[in-house]
């Protein structure tokens, strides 16, 4: 990205308090900002050719008890991707929808609501999107034990065909418990 473009960006970020930004790679800008200033920044950037919201990612950070939301916006003119990182507390886990600024946000927010349980105020539709058959807690949370859920829900280990018994007679079979833990750590 040219110097001129960076100047243009810093003129945007100067208008909002507590913004850190750096150019991590060619065409990648990482911005860290306070959650309440995000809609203002997005509205400003949209007016400066960053018209494409390509994704919203959510990261569960149980060690800080918060969610990190990353808004990726792309400019076709600058050919630059801005990733705006914000952090919101896990309780109550609510944030405002940016649907009024970027219309495609509706799908991303619906997806994040389903996978992480984050509520977006003002989002047009937060009904189940992919997991329409899902009854349990949001599955992408790190507190959700996938393996335990699988063992409780599916009885797949009951399948004991003859060939498997023959393998076990020869000394094969599942890895022992202690060895299994080592594999997981690797």
């Amino acid at each position, binding site marked *: 990205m040219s110097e001129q473009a960076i100047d243009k960006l810093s003129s945007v970020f100067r208008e909002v308090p507590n913004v850190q930004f750096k150019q991590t790679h060619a065409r990648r800008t990482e911005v860290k900002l306070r959650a309440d200033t995000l809609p203002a920044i997005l509205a400003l950037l949209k007016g400066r050719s960053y018209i494409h919201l390509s994704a919203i990612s959510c990261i569960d950070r149980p060690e800080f008890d918060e969610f990190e939301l990353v808004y990726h916006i792309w400019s076709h003119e600058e050919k630059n991707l801005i990733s705006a990182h914000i952090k919101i507390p896990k309780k109550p886990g609510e944030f405002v929808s940016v649907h009024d600024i970027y219309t495609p946000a509706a799908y991303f927010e619906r997806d994040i609501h389903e996978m992480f349980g984050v509520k977006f105020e003002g989002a047009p539709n937060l009904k189940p999107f992919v*997991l329409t058959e899902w009854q349990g807690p949001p599955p992408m949370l790190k507190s959700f034990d996938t393996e335990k859920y699988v063992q409780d829900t599916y009885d797949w280990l009951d*399948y004991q065909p003859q060939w498997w018994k023959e393998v076990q007679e020869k000394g094969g079979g599942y890895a022992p418990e202690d060895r299994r833990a080592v594999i997981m750590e690797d």
Partner: protein
Amino acid sequence: MVDKTIPIHADSNTDVTCRNIDKEERTLWRKVIDRIADHCRARSLFVLHYCTGCGAIELPPAITSRFDSERLGMQPMVSPRQADLLLITGYLSVKTLKRVILSYEQMQSPKYVIGFGSCTINGGMYWNSYATIKRLEAYIPVDLYIAGCMPRPEAVQQSFIKLMEQIDNGEANAWKDYYRNYDRYLAKQQALFGDEWHTHVDVVAEAEHYQLLTEQTTGQHTKLLEKFANQYAMHDFSTVQIPEEEKVE
């Protein structure tokens, strides 16, 4: 002294000799007919492929000119109602399993299922995923599994030949198991989808039609379906009142 009378409308295998009749037993004439029918059926299979898994990549070479499964009389079919063979090409999530069961129940019997790859056998590489089912045969009966991740078109072709052999010998009878043990299959389906799960196909009535109704066909799980019966009941047109002005004098 047992009073033995020959019923006028006899079953095809009614035996008037002094022995118990095996319900599975077929008359010689029936055997010949079935043998011919099986022989023909094995050589003209219409294939419905459910391509949500990676086996979808292996099917184009298996079906088109490189391996050309039409040599075996197999052809892709667009709708489940005309298809004989359902290919489950890889992993199934809970959501797609619902659609598979809907497609499977729409198919006309006799119908056959081939499960591709390790995902349909025990979950494969998705063994610890919350979203995918692990064993396909718990939910619908499966005739053949192809081992591998993913099986090559040669293996797919081999399985087609194997299935044809089984049909020809009258051994590919997994579809009968669905009617005989419907309650067991439904129990597994309801465990995933909840008690409100129902399809528009009346499997118990079909089991009766194919004379495959057993004690395991109905049970406590099929009882839950009864409350949905009205939803799909045929509309009784005899009670419809024609408005006065529409009557033709």
